[in-house]
């Protein structure tokens, strides 16, 4: 067993785990945060995307022991109480999901794209940056629209805060 400590959605957590525990298993099975999904388990689909120290990573391809000391944000950590994050709101407004399985990963990637590329994203940039996320329902059209709108809303929110 190995001891890990990390911060997940702002809360410190500590646990004794088998070293082969994947970060996604730790999040889902130990912390019971089941918003992060496992689509492929082979590093392709991005359904398991979370933020590790501020950047998007595939939690099915990261060991929980490697995340010791890290700051993790999952889809559950985006909203403020009942108030959805602007990117979540944009997915709702644009019907950016069908079955919803890929959605948590899509939204975590979308927020990461805005963090890296800014709030004004053209369609080409969004599609290119989404290479690590697969939607089995193939609902890309509305996902791309949602990310464009969500990015603008994040930009406006940041502007208002400054």
């Amino acid at each position, binding site marked *: 067993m*190995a001891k890990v400590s990390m911060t997940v959605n702002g809360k410190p957590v500590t646990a004794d785990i*088998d*070293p*082969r525990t*994947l970060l996604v298993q730790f999040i889902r099975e130990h912390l019971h945060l089941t918003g992060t999904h496992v689509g492929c*388990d*082979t*590093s392709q689909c*991005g359904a398991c*995307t979370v933020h*590790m120290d501020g*950047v*998007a*990573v*595939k939690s099915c*391809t*990261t*060991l929980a*022991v*490697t995340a*010791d*000391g890290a700051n993790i944000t999952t889809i559950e950590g985006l909203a403020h109480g009942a108030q959805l994050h602007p990117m979540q709101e944009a997915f709702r407004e644009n019907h950016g999901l069908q079955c919803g399985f890929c959605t948590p990963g899509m939204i975590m*990637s979308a927020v*990461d*794209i805005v963090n*890296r590329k800014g709030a004004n994203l053209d369609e080409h940039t969004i599609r290119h*940056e989404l*290479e*690590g*996320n697969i939607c089995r329902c193939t609902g890309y059209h509305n996902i791309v629209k949602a990310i464009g709108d969500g990015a603008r809303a994040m930009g406006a929110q940041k502007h208002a805060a400054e």
Partner: protein
Amino acid sequence: MYSFTHHAASSVADAVKSVGEGKYLAGGHTLIPTMKQRLAQPGHLVDLNKVAELKGISDNGSVLTIKAMSRHAEVASSDVVKKAIPGLAALAGGIGDPQVRHRGTIGGSVANNDPVADYPAACLALGATIVTDRRRIKADDFFQGLFTTALEDNELITAFEFPHADKFAYAKFRNPASLYALVGVAVAKRGSDVRVAVTGAGSDGVFRWTDAEAKLASNFSASALDGLKASASGLNGDIHGSAEYRAHLIGVMAKRAAAAA
């Protein structure tokens, strides 16, 4: 995945001392999938992610040094790399997808020497030196066939030294599903010396295309390669493309790289 013990190394010396029969864990983006498939089953992992000595990028005006644990995203966005060898930053920015680039490292990629990986082509074309815990290895001596390198058991890559070039570019034809190179060609020019390295195609891994080097040495332009055909013998053929198709792509990618350099 079979069980293993895990040690978070605190330094290069600690990592080398504690690895034993085990394996180093860098970004994990090759090793973890391989362990899930039980193609690798190390009993012990020495995690390099907390080793500060293995991080950082610097340049002394003629040689760019990239430490082994630099993530692909760090190399892609580094102002030091963009100034010294811009084509190398572009190569790193074309590896996998954003999430892969946030975890994968140059050390892990080159140690693994996957025949479809991108960095080996840059190391070979630029004549990089691979620095380890115990010696310095020239790229020409480092890559020794499929997933095979000059590294001894337990030998740890600490850094890569890339001497600047007058011109350098890498052109990649991606396999759209895996994102790896179906064919990738790196072209480097230093004075009258030209080196062309091909990845993705060779059944023995990365190799130099000396016919193209000779043509580009006398006239460094895409048109110098007109009519030059790579041989299909010794190339991979699979469901993604025949050996002949890959041979054709080598010519196309070499021209694109020469034009972009």
